């Protein structure tokens, strides 16, 4: 009977990360309906973590086994594996960080975790996309659950506002991208990325205004998701309003996914048009660096500050994309991973501080943290130093690699912008450090809430990885170069 089934060839092992996440998301959703609240409170996050762990293992097994699956809709290669692992990891940490938050009770734990998993599937599909239609499906699957996640703190007006804002502005961004993709299809007559590439290099369609307009709109739409200037304006409001674990997830995973697909399009089929798009990306990068860094100065809300800083960081990342060499892409991938890790550390500290004090999200809430909780303050310090690009942290190596790629790729002025931007960024990153260690908090503020060990552990782990990436960067840098090689050679 089974043998009689005439089925299309399906590479189950390459598809496994996607299927396991989907099954997991459904199971988690149903698990949110059974048993007592007490049972659910560990069963649901537990199942979500198991799902993510399984997915991570499946992804890892695909390292150095590139494969195109589902009628050439998805490409599972080293880039997919690396960024996919990053997103899966970010999701897992988001689950851990929200273990103690009382926020999801309002909406039910099942939905929260299920939506998180669905978003992760969207990211995976987006990163692996090998087709214009897949790109859009992935992007929407990524976005829609995120809109809801932003608004999960139903009782808090800011959370609802964040969700609504993200939904409306996000639709504009999605529409822009869709329009761009449609124009690219119109110009080249194909939705498959490799075929688009062939069409462009065959017909010399580089001067086709249709294609260029499509490219511009696609870049705009994806820059929106990556929150690069001038498409960044939703970022501070949404990052501040959304529940902090969700913000953490957005700041790390969403950026990785958006940059991943931008990389795949621009350095893939559109590589022949590099002279057209590189200046555009360079300008976006410069704007992001300037706007992000100046916006972050003088912010009293840590979440807003980190939002602005994430805009600047995207600028640094895009500076790696501009060169479009394996050197630049390797630097980008390395810095992307480091960025995710150090951001995770920062947000974990913010979450813990939010739990234990009234104004934990404000800068004033960090006063005297070094005295009260030196480990937490230490993790924050490492994160801030790394975001500022100071040694001996991964952020330093990452920036160095990007600057090196820029300088050797003929983008000297962009490297200079990057250095000057980092100079400005010291103004707000070091302010946090100074506040923690060199001012007194109100000493009598004894934490009413019990300290959350797992959150501190996440912060310390992320800080340790940040340091490790700065002290022994050879191995990760080489892996990042591998990824850069696969992207360049796969076109």
């Amino acid at each position, binding site marked *: 009977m089974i043998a009689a*089934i005439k089925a299309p060839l399906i590479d189950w092992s390459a598809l496994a990360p996607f299927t396991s996440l989907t099954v997991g998301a459904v199971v988690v959703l149903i698990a949110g309906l059974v048993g007592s609240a007490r049972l659910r409170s560990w069963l649901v996050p537990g199942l979500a973590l198991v799902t993510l762990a399984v997915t991570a293992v499946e992804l890892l097994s695909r390292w150095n086994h590139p494969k195109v699956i589902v009628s050439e809709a998805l490409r599972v290669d080293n880039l997919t594996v690396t960024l996919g692992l990053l997103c899966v990891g970010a999701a897992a940490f988001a689950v851990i960080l929200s273990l103690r938050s009382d926020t999801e009770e309002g909406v039910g734990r099942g939905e929260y975790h299920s939506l998180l998993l669905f978003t992760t599937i969207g990211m995976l599909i987006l990163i692996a996309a090998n087709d214009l239609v897949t790109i859009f499906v992935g992007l929407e699957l990524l976005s829609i659950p995120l809109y809801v996640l932003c608004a999960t703190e139903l009782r808090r007006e800011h959370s609802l506002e964040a969700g609504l804002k993200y939904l409306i502005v996000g639709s504009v961004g999605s529409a822009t991208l869709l329009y761009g993709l449609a124009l690219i299809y119109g110009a080249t007559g194909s939705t498959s990325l490799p075929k688009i590439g062939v069409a462009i290099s065959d017909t010399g369609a580089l001067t086709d205004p249709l294609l260029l307009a499509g490219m511009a709109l696609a870049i705009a739409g994806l820059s929106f998701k990556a929150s690069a200037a001038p498409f960044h304006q939703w970022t501070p409001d949404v990052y501040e309003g959304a529940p902090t674990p969700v913000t953490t997830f957005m700041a790390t995973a969403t950026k990785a996914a958006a940059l991943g697909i931008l990389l795949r399009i621009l350095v893939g089929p559109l590589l022949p048009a590099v002279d057209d798009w590189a200046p555009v990306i360079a300008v976006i990068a410069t704007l992001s660096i300037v706007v992000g860094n100046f916006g972050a100065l003088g912010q009293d809300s840590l979440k807003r500050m980190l939002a602005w800083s994430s805009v600047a960081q995207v600028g640094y990342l895009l500076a790696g994309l501009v060169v479009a060499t394996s050197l630049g892409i390797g630097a980008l991938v390395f810095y992307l991973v480091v960025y995710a890790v150090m951001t995770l550390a920062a947000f974990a500290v913010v979450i813990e501080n939010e739990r234990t004090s009234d104004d934990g999200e404000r800068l004033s809430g960090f006063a005297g943290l070094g005295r009260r909780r030196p480990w937490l303050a230490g993790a924050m310090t490492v994160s801030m130093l790394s975001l500022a690009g100071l040694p001996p942290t991964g952020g330093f190596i990452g920036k160095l690699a990007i600057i090196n790629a820029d300088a050797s790729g003929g983008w000297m002025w962009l490297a200079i912008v990057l250095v000057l931007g980092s100079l400005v960024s010291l103004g707000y990153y070091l302010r946090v450090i100074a506040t923690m260690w060199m001012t007194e908090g109100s000493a009598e503020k004894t934490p009413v809430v019990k300290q959350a060990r797992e959150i501190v552990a996440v912060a310390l782990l992320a800080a340790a990885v940040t340091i490790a990436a700065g002290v022994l960067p050879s191995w990760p840098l080489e892996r990042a170069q591998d990824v850069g090689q696969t992207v360049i050679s796969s076109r």
Partner: protein
Amino acid sequence: MLNSYLPAIVFLLLGGVVGTAFALMNGIFGPKTNRRSASKTSPYECGLPSDVQQGFRFGISFYMIAMLFILFDIEVIFLYPIAVKLKEFGAFALVETSIFVALLFVGFGYVWRRGALSWR
């Protein structure tokens, strides 16, 4: 190159002209009265006075059920393309459809269990 866009531009222009013309014709050909009566400014509803008052609220349950109905209704449409190509796919199509329907049932079960279908 831009010549190929000529039909589109003509279409846009025509559309604009026709739309504007219809909007303006009322004022030109209609009876000239300056009075703004209540029936003139209220929403047009088949010539009958409107029952719906401003600020009227639907019950949230109404929305829920309406939305869920549309959702499940539309999902069924996805079964049609399979019906067309059933011969070519054979048993695989059956398995695929069963999985799809099973997933729909999961969704249904979830909605039911969450109490979205009970009228409150």
